[in-house]
């Protein structure tokens, strides 16, 4: 492909990746920010979102749009409830101790993955997109007659991919409104700032923690529901999102939502663009290098705050 159309295609692919990554990483960042828990099972909640989406969509049947909308609501909710239960049953009993919860969430990772394998099976299943029109994108060139528009070969996206980007922006704004403007957000931020003082002021910290863990997992599941009509639900799909989310959260700054969003867009876009022009392996190498650089020269991340 020529350079111009090639670049546009790379940006479009990167945008879709960045959108899903933003939601997933926001969930991880929120859980870490508020609870100081490094949730290694986060990728599995992502996977569960996709698997539940397949379950909901295939059991409802009918038009794809009905199944998809149902999945969009039910799957994150189910995953959220599961995560709340996991916090209540496991993490709370460890007093949310940062080190022991790492081990506990690794255990959760295996339990979730193996239970999915035993029930859902090892196959990948697609969810039908609610709509999916191919959209050819015009490009221009200067010829003897002046500016001319044409449709380059292969330069296209689909309406559904654009929808994923839009949906991620809306969901991201929703999270920001919740954190910055609502009473619940105030409580979350208070707990994040100082757990003891929040407790002294009558905030039910244990319940806030459970809620946060559930909300973080639901965000990952939401990202998965959006991506599952493009990719497919598979029991091993949680690995990549987990790694990328960690990279994003470290670069963006632990617990900083603004940093997380910015880093997700940066990593998602650069991943897309570098993958298209060079190779996906190089994209991963560069992202990892960036993490190393951030850790050495700016350990709190781009937007990380020093805890009080």
């Amino acid at each position, binding site marked *: 492909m020529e350079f111009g159309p090639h670049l546009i295609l790379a940006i479009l692919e990167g945008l879709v990746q960045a959108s899903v990554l933003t939601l997933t990483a926001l969930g991880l960042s929120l859980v870490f920010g508020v609870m100081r828990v490094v949730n290694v099972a986060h990728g599995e909640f992502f996977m569960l979102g996709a698997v539940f989406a397949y379950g909901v969509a295939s059991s409802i049947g009918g038009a794809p749009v009905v199944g998809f909308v149902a999945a969009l609501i039910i799957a994150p909710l189910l995953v959220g409830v599961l995560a709340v239960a996991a916090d209540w049953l496991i993490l709370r009993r460890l007093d949310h101790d940062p080190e022991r919860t*790492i*081990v506990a969430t690794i255990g959760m990772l*295996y339990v979730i993955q193996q239970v999915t394998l035993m029930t859902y099976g*090892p196959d990948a299943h697609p969810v*039908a997109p609610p709509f999916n029109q191919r959209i050819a994108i015009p490009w221009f060139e200067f010829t003897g007659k002046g500016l001319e528009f044409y449709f380059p*070969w292969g330069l296209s996206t689909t309406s559904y991919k654009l929808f994923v980007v839009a949906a991620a922006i809306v969901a991201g704004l929703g999270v920001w409104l919740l954190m910055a403007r609502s009473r619940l957000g105030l409580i979350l931020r208070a707990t994040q700032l100082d757990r003891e003082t929040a407790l002294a002021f009558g905030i039910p910290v244990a319940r806030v923690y459970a809620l946060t863990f559930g909300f973080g997992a639901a965000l990952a599941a939401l990202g998965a529901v959006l991506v599952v009509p493009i990719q*497919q639900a598979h029991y091993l799909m949680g690995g990549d999102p987990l790694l990328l989310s960690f990279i994003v959260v470290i670069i963006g700054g632990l617990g900083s939502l603004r940093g997380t969003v910015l880093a997700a867009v940066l990593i998602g876009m650069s991943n897309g663009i570098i993958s298209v022009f060079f190779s996906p392996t190089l994209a991963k190498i560069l992202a990892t290098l960036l993490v190393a650089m951030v850790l050495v020269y*700016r350990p709190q991340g781009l937007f990380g*705050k020093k805890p009080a």
Partner: protein
Amino acid sequence: MVSKKSNSNPANRRSVLKGMAAIGAASALPGFVPFAEAGTNEPIKIGFQVHRTGIGAAYGRWYDRTTKAAVKVINDAGGINGRPVEIIAEDDGTDPKRGAEVVEKFATLHKADIAFGTLFSHVVIGSAPRAGELKIPYFVVSEGHHVASGMLNRWTLQPGITDVKSQVQAMAPFVAANLGKKVTMIFPDFAFGHDHRDYFSAAIEKQGGNVIAKIAIPPTETSFTKYFAKIPRDTEVIYHVMVGPAVLTFVKEMGEFFGPSRPEIFGFIDSLEAVDLKTPGLEFLEGTYFWEGYNRYAQPDQSDVDRFYRAAVGIDNNGASVSDPKDVSTAAHMWGCWETLYVIKAGMEAAGYRGPKDRAALVEAVEAMTTMAEGREHPQGDKLFNGKTHQVFGHQNISRFEGGKLVRVHRTSIEDTLYPDEVDYTKMSF
């Protein structure tokens, strides 16, 4: 925001790093494996290395069903040398390291007579050296050229499925004559895909064509548009072969990329094995061509043998499970398990096989085989076995995508698939 990098609460960063290290450590743990107890010595025990999980799972499920079906037919007819056949299946997770461990378990723990059934080439390459050390016959059903290339050992044989080199060599004349001469290849980035890349490139050049771009994709990849952007504009034919859980996404995104102006497309059915061809998004494949080792759809000239084989394995005329039409089989490959088991049966009977001390005699008996006639033992067609290279040769099918089905348009001769020997395993010691 704080710009000082000291006092930045190292505990938090450290805990994140610990988490990442822990992921790495945890992923190195072996999967959960139940230890089966060793049974009596009476039945002939065949250790079945099956891809129950991992990227080969869809193939594994159908290799399992085909194997069970063949063993039932064999046992109903009196077994091998009057002894029943017992299958000891172990999951290898489609992982080479685990594969070698599974072979070892067959030899030492289960006291299996032979090992059998591996498909994915990296697992075969990882397991075969262990089989050679343990001196256990290892019958693979893999398609990889690694057996005939001489890379493995005397204990590893592929008598029930043809290899990639012979397949692509037989496809190249059809592609060059009917579809075009400038080819872009898209293939998975591991041994199996490299076989396609190397041998098809060579074969198409002999036909006066050439491969103008080679696009390798990691088999665990989940999104593909970024790779399609590398397809040169002057491509006449796309040659695609893909494996792994994301094959459907691969083909769909290819359709979305090309839109209304696709080049000619020739694919190995691997790209859509176990996938329903009527899935929305695959309509663009109408009029494209596929290699099939075995025709997924019953053809108009269906033979009695094909009817018998489909009924025994439990697939209908569309190549899907009779109990669930959405459960589509890996028809183009799984017949290899059926035929391999019959070769093992014939080999054991010729060698008068009684127990593990006759393992070398079994290998020699199989090496002595040449022609195999079409029939219930070989439903895919007649075969020619090369004892020196441990590789079987057979007919290949080219099918056209018509109305969501695959209709055979060409069947190659066995001669089309032959190439000079690259090894003589019979000269190696046991």
